[in-house]
């Protein structure tokens, strides 16, 4: 294999085109599987397969050619109508796509010696084609499946389960036993991350393993053992015989932040540290717009430097105008660059049909997935971090939400359940709504569970929203039977934490026997926000401008005191809750008179709220610095920023402030306080 051809630009183009091709194939197959019978659709899939084969052939990636060729033969029979479509065909082709993706990951990681395609999969495809003959390809003179080299070698398999692996029903005992079948295994367990019994979350996997394996099996065979857990476990195989540096390279992302499909990639040679973040595809029109802006900037700059050369007081007016123009240019450029980081959420939605298909088969449920708002754009980082939580939520809906067909029938619902996911922009934020028409959340059982676990006293009276909020508590789940898919009460707390970390919120509404709705609100971007500056004592704070509705000079006669110490302010025809931010941030006990400050009316997640501050300062764009990463999570604060004068200002987070206020009255502490495990 003359692998050196596959370098630089060509490699990038090949990888991107193959990625796209596989995506087209997968989406097409899922539509066929869902009942679509469109000749053009089959042609599209076939063409995609053919281009992948062609590309792989150009680069002499024989295993890829071989596998695609098998898939193509099968597709050809379907295309010409000589073989009717069946879901077996769909499953086999989808498995082929999975395997091709793994191969592509190898290419992406810079390894050109691909492992041969799994013989089992090839046999499956061949059996479906009905012609178990040689795999020679008339139009591409490439070798067939490369023969296995039958020699013993010693490899080290590093097994790094994600903490949720056991919760998904995967047992390390079975996995390692399976691995030991491939040869003589010597298992070393690393329990250094195992917390004390007191702090232990017994459902999470804290152990890691290194297995020294003497085997004749290929890397592929070894990976096959972990094929069920590729989303929940990082596996790295290092060959003892290979260059020793291979084992020194950093292990894959330990917290599993990278999308799961890529997990099985091993150590990468050279400086390419993370292929995930290596590139971003940007539409040409966005780049053109940037080029235009840079042009403007150059004009402004030359104008300013001309003025600078000739410091004549009469030119002051022109200088000011020039600086203003520079400000505008900078801002436009900044927005343009930020826009390049924006990706449509459809990228994440595209993962879901496959998940729904596989899981509904497994659970024996019939479920329809409806997605809308795929074009809604949000920041790449936010998007990547939302991917896993969304998958988890959809899993939950499938598993716990949608009832079995018999129950649905008895309740007078259509047997086919529906999960709807809608994304949209709403006042400066991205809102993702996930609805299912399932059985809803049983708050009585939730309450019983919470009492049983000692989270709640039997005498505590909680309203329904507060009870529903319990689903985000670590260790609570209402599923009557724990299933392999989800439901050991690990997960929702993680989902909420992920969303909080992105500066977002998640709310749940549920009606028994009717369904559940989850609403996720996310900031458009993480890096920069338009802020309203305000002062409390000697400190400056920032409030995201998107949440500011208006500001006003308070009239003390419009203040009302409620039982329990809460205050409300009469704003025109309505009363809004009033938060004295000095109290919330613990600045002073001194009760300022209302007429000495100002009220900022802000939009919270549940309506408007009045924030009582000392003084309003200007508005400006601020760069958000993570407080959590540099200090620690603080409720009510979304982050910090550094102002022009070097002062650090905290960025207030309206939903967080409301939560702070609400929690004082509630018996259950927020999940943020329970981050023990």
């Amino acid at each position, binding site marked *: 294999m003359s692998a050196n051809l596959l370098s630089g630009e060509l490699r990038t183009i090949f990888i991107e085109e193959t990625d796209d091709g596989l995506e087209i194939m997968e989406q097409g197959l899922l539509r066929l599987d869902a009942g679509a019978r469109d000749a053009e659709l089959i042609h599209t899939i076939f063409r995609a397969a053919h281009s992948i084969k062609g590309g792989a052939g150009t680069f002499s990636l024989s295993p890829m050619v071989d596998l695609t060729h098998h898939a193509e033969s099968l597709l050809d029979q379907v295309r010409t109508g000589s073989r009717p479509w069946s879901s077996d065909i769909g499953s086999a082709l989808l498995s082929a796509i999975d395997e091709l993706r793994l191969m592509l990951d190898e290419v992406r990681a810079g390894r050109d010696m691909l492992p041969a395609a799994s013989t089992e999969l090839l046999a499956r495809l061949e059996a479906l084609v009905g012609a178990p003959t040689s795999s020679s390809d008339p139009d591409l003179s490439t070798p067939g499946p490369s023969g296995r080299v039958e020699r013993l070698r010693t490899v080290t398999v590093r097994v790094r389960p994600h903490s949720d692996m*056991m*919760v998904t029903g995967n*047992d*390390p*005992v*079975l996995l*390692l*036993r399976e691995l*030991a079948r491939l040869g003589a295994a010597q*298992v*070393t*367990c690393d*329990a250094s991350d*195992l*917390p*004390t*019994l*007191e702090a*232990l979350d*017994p*459902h999470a*996997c*804290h*152990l890691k*393993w290194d297995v020294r394996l003497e085997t004749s099996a290929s890397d592929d065979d070894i990976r096959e053992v972990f094929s069920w857990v590729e989303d929940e476990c990082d596996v790295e195989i290092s060959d003892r015989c290979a260059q020793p540096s291979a084992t020194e390279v950093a292990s894959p992302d330990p917290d599993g932040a990278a999308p799961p499909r890529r997990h099985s990639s091993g150590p990468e040679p050279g400086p390419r540290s993370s292929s995930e973040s290596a590139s971003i595809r940007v539409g040409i029109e966005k780049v053109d717009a940037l080029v235009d802006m840079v042009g403007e900037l150059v004009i402004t700059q030359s104008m300013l430097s001309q003025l600078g050369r000739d410091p004549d007081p009469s030119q002051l007016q022109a200088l000011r105008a020039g600086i203003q123009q520079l400000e505008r240019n900078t801002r436009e450029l900044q927005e343009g660059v930020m826009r390049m980081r924006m990706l449509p959420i459809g990228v994440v939605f595209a993962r879901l049909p496959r998940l729904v298909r596989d899981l509904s088969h497994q659970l024996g449920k019939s479920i329809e997935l409806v997605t809308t708002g795929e074009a809604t754009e949000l920041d790449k980082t936010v998007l990547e971090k939302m991917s896993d939580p969304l998958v988890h939520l959809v899993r939950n809906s499938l598993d716990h939400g949608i009832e079995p067909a018999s129950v649905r029938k008895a309740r007078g619902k259509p047997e086919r359940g529906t999960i709807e996911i809608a994304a949209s922009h709403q006042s400066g934020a991205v809102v993702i709504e996930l609805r299912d028409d399932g059985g809803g959340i049983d708050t009585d059982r939730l309450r019983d569970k919470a009492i049983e676990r000692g989270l709640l006293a039997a005498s505590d009276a909680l309203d329904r929203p507060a009870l529903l909020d319990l689903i985000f508590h670590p*260790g609570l789940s209402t599923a009557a039977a*724990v299933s392999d898919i989800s439901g*050991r009460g690990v997960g929702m707390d993680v989902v909420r934490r992920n969303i909080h970390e992105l500066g977002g919120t998640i709310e749940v509404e549920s009606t028994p026997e009717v369904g559940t709705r989850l609403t996720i609100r996310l900031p458009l971007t993480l890096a920069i926000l338009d802020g309203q500056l305000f002062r409390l004592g000697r400190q400056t704070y920032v409030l995201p401008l998107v949440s500011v509705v208006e500001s006003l000079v308070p009239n003390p006669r419009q203040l009302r005191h409620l039982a329990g110490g809460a205050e409300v302010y009469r704003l025109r025809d309505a009363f809004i809750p009033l938060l004295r931010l000095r109290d919330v941030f613990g600045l002073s006990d001194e009760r300022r008179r209302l007429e000495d400050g100002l009220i900022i009316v802000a939009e919270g997640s549940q309506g408007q709220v009045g924030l009582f501050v000392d003084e309003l300062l200007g508005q400006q764009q601020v760069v958000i610095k993570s407080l959590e990463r540099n200090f620690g999570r603080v409720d009510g604060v979304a982050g910090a920023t550094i102002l022009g004068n070097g002062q650090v200002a905290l960025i207030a987070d309206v939903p967080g402030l409301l939560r702070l206020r609400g929690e004082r009255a509630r018996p259950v502490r927020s999940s943020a306080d329970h981050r023990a495990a």
Partner: protein
Amino acid sequence: MTTTVTCPPDLVISAVAELREALLAALGAQEIRVDAAAVERADGAGLQLLVAFVRDRRRVGRSTELRTSEALRAAAESLGLASVLAEASPGGGAA
């Protein structure tokens, strides 16, 4: 007096939350016997819990007597944890 904590026949993930409570309650006792002789099935979660317990006991300088079953020993073997449990088993030389 020796406190005895008995493991269920299925020492698996669905049982670990309850067993952890029992072990936590017994953690401070002078002498503990963990009776896992009836274990017929053990998974990673079950073994992880036992290892955490034995190790916590050792940290405070207390010993644990562990009665194991064939199934438990086999599962521990495949996870490379046999030595940790053997240390606490009778005949294995308690710490």
